[in-house]
């Protein structure tokens, strides 16, 4: 057993070391049915109802590969810049566990779906490329239920609804050198996969699961240190916390004369610590061999080309385009490309309004504020992108004051109506016709002799007061620029 690191490493000690991190990310594909049978993948059904002889692992049952699962997996591989192999092969990974009905997982081994990819991350302005070693397909296991039954004290139950759910495993190169880089990498991977619609990547539902391989070495050292595999990183926060803990643990261990053991460690979010699960002496021998029940998976170039052509624009590219084409600030571009739905919403607002900067301002300000207050996703927004675009367009053309626009927006969010309809009904349209405003301006001049005198005496700031009179009289509908011009002409 490894020495237990009684004290965490000092910041000085940690600073002498360089962490080396690689991530294994499991992603559940958003298919309607399971990877090797026709059972639905829906979440939350009563235990053992979405099952059939194939995903129950009954005698005589055989897997048949889902085309949809392959399509999503290939899209994921393309989004991660991988080379999709013309031929890949499923392999059996053999081990015993009650949630694994066949006694083996159907995965891929030496002929994965795709290899040699990368994603680029940016950390504090500095870009870095993280290699993606491989992407392979596999089926998920079921779930053990240890709680919630009358006899849960001495009994566990198996729910096989999840058995056979399609997964991809994305293995990175050991290219990350800090927990922040790992965080940024996982963020980028998640965002890409969500963008292309291959997975919801919902970590709470287990649609995105992450294991990390971590080692440390003295800065400048050539060789990698011995790595530990850290499991149970079920949120972005836990990933960072667990990595920081593990890095500190390994440094402390080495500094105190110990050695890191190659082992699997489980992160405990309650204590914030990692603990050894099984050492090398208990390491599994999975006895991989080619799955004889499935033919090799051949992916022909024309099909691949069609998928490639149908790929949506990925977030990094979209960010660059938003900055370039719309003149957005980098931060705004990042916020607006965080999700595919958000970026599409913004682009509609920008196009309809003809004013991308104002569009960004409205989407990031009023709209996101509204969604947050109502606890809604952008896809459920009560204000459609087209309507918001129309509203932003009206303000941009000076047909609606900022103040009125906010009023109209509030009404839009309540009723879902188009801004034009609200403005029409409530008579909120800005009055820009100088003929229509002339009377109000003349009234204001007549009612404010003192201010008129001051203005004529050279105190031009008093103009604001006079304009304010007109605005009040028109319930804010007057076009300020037109009114100001009228005063200048009449008093000048």
């Amino acid at each position, binding site marked *: 057993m490894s020495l237990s690191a009684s004290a965490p490493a000092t910041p000085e000690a940690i600073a002498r070391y360089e962490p080396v991190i690689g991530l294994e990310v499991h992603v559940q594909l958003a298919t309607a049915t399971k990877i090797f049978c026709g059972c639905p993948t829906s979440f939350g059904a009563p235990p053992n109802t979405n099952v059939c002889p194939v995903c129950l692992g009954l005698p*005589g049952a055989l897997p048949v590969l889902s085309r949809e699962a392959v399509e999503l997996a290939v899209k994921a591989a393309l989004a991660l810049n991988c080379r999709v192999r013309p031929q890949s092969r499923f392999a059996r990974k053999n081990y015993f566990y009650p949630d694994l009905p066949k006694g083996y997982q159907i995965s891929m081994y030496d002929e994965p779906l795709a290899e040699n990819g990368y994603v680029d991350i940016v950390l504090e302005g500095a870009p870095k490329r993280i290699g993606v070693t491989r992407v392979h397909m596999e089926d998920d296991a079921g779930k053990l239920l240890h709680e919630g039954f009358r006899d849960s004290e001495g009994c566990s139950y198996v729910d096989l609804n999840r058995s056979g759910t399609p997964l991809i495993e994305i293995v990175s190169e050991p290219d990350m050198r800090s927990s922040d880089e790992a965080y940024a990498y996982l963020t980028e991977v998640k965002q890409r996969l969500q963008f292309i619609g291959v997975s919801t990547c919902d970590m709470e539902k287990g649609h995105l699961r992450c294991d990390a391989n971590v080692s440390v070495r003295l800065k400048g050292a050539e060789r990698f240190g011995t790595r530990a595999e850290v499991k149970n990183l079920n949120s972005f926060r836990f990933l960072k916390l667990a990595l920081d803990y593990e890095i500190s643990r390994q440094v402390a261990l080495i500094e105190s004369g110990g050695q890191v053991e190659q082992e699997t460690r489980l992160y405990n979010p309650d204590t914030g610590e990692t603990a050894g699960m099984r050492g090398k002496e208990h390491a599994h021998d999975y006895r991989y061999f080619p799955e004889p029940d499935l033919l090799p998976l051949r992916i022909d170039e024309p099909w691949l080309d069609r998928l490639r052509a149908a790929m949506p624009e990925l977030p990094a590219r979209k960010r660059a385009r938003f900055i370039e084409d719309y003149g957005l600030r980098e931060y705004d571009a990042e916020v607006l490309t965080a999700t595919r739905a958000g970026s599409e919403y913004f682009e509609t607002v920008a196009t309809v309004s003809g004013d991308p900067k104002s569009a960004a301002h409205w989407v990031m300000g009023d709209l996101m504020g509204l969604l947050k207050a109502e606890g809604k996703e952008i896809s459920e927004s009560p204000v459609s992108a087209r309507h918001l675009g129309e509203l932003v367009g009206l303000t941009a053309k000076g047909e609606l004051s900022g103040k009125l626009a906010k009023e109209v927006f509030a009404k839009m969010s309540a009723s879902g109506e188009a801004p034009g309809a609200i403005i029409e009904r409530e008579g909120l349209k800005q009055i820009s016709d100088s003929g229509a405003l002339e009377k109000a301006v003349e009234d204001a001049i007549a009612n404010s002799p003192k201010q008129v005198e001051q203005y004529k005496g050279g105190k031009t700031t008093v103009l604001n007061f006079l304009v304010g009179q007109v605005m009040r009289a028109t319930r804010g509908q007057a076009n300020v620029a037109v009114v100001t011009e009228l005063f200048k002409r009449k008093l000048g």
Partner: protein
Amino acid sequence: MDIASLSIDSIREGLLSRRFSAAELAADALRFAEAANPETGAYLRFSPERALASARRVDERIARGEDPGPLAGVPVAVKDVILTKGVTTTCGSKLLAGYVPPYDATAVVRMEEAGGVILGKTNCDEFAMGSSTENSAFGPVRNPVALDRVPGGSSGGSAAAVAQGTAVVALGSDTGGSIRQPASFCGVVGVTPTYGRVSRFGLTAFASSLDHIGPFARNVKDAATLLRAIAGRDVRDSTSAGVPVPDYAALPGGGVKGLKLGLPREYLKDLKSETGALISGGVDAFQRLGCEVREISLPSTDYAIACYYIIATAEASSNLARFDGVRYTSRSASSETLADMYRNSRGEGFGAECKRRIMLGTYVLSAGYYDAYYLKAQKARALIAGDFARAFEEVDAIVAPVSPFPAFKLGEKVDDPLAMYLSDIYTITGSLAGIPCMSVPCGKTAGGLPVGMQILATHFGEPVMFRVASAFEQAGGVN
């Protein structure tokens, strides 16, 4: 009605001429089989309800004037590794005693759609592992030809039922010779079709890349008719082939004159026994029929046994993992931990031969041994397949012995697994190559024990294989 001498044609004739109904035939056949079964133990259990229901459907079709199907009313025995919905399927294992599958194998569905009537499930070596049917957890089967001898294996029950006359045809499974060898031992016809010809969906897997479902019959035509009914692409088996299924039973006339038959040198060099003499007689018969028999070489044959016992056991070790005591298999009563539960359930449930093969298979797939065993065996397999491919450039079919010896005595080889494994020496090469092969009766030894002639053809070469077999059968075999 003389149940034991019925054929598919005679049943069809009887049904269509209204001499008997399918229901009457099924009831008679069940009565006869149940009475005769204790002699051999070929059947593990009968399925009278299912049989009578199938028979009634055939009668209804006939009453409506519809074609009742190519297997109309034919009593069929099904090996107990092939799943039958609602009918207990044990695979000859204690682990599955009382296991009732919730679905039917595709071959069973197709056979019943063709009008077949399942009388019951036949005994076999546990999970189809063996060459004598002595590895069944439910006792051995006796060879109806000589009751103190084994029927061969692993499909011994199906072969014995057909030989005894308690079924007209039967379904068996073959991984390394489990149809051909018992067919040879019992003096019936047994066919291992091309790999992928018959869906494996619903066949409890032993070695997935080698497993086949195939027919037993008392004549070539019946075997061909049954094969045609069950063959063809099945979307539930990715390894099943989309190659069209010809009418195997509509054999073209003109015999086999001028066909080139290959006789593999490597199969004959150690065959000096009575079996060798019968095979030579069979070869003479082919020559009399006008075939050109030439000696060929299959040089990689020597690797076959080792290659087979690596690949088959490797796959078996994985395929049998699901019998773990967690769900449908029986669970050991006394276990403290999960690991104990696995160990005890499997330790108590599996018989010696299964354990031997699971251990072998686990070993050859282990880290550090995979390349030396499994990978090398796959290379040898490719060489063996290459031997056949070259041979079929020269010849239309290959003729060979099925087994080096006829049926041996019960208990004679149970303590010598290696001697038992050698029963398969001539059958596993065809299995490894995935080509169609069959056994047709080729006379009897002086002691009255049947010997089979093996006929092998190229992938999806069933038509030529059946043509050769049929001509041989009609010529009266060796005599």
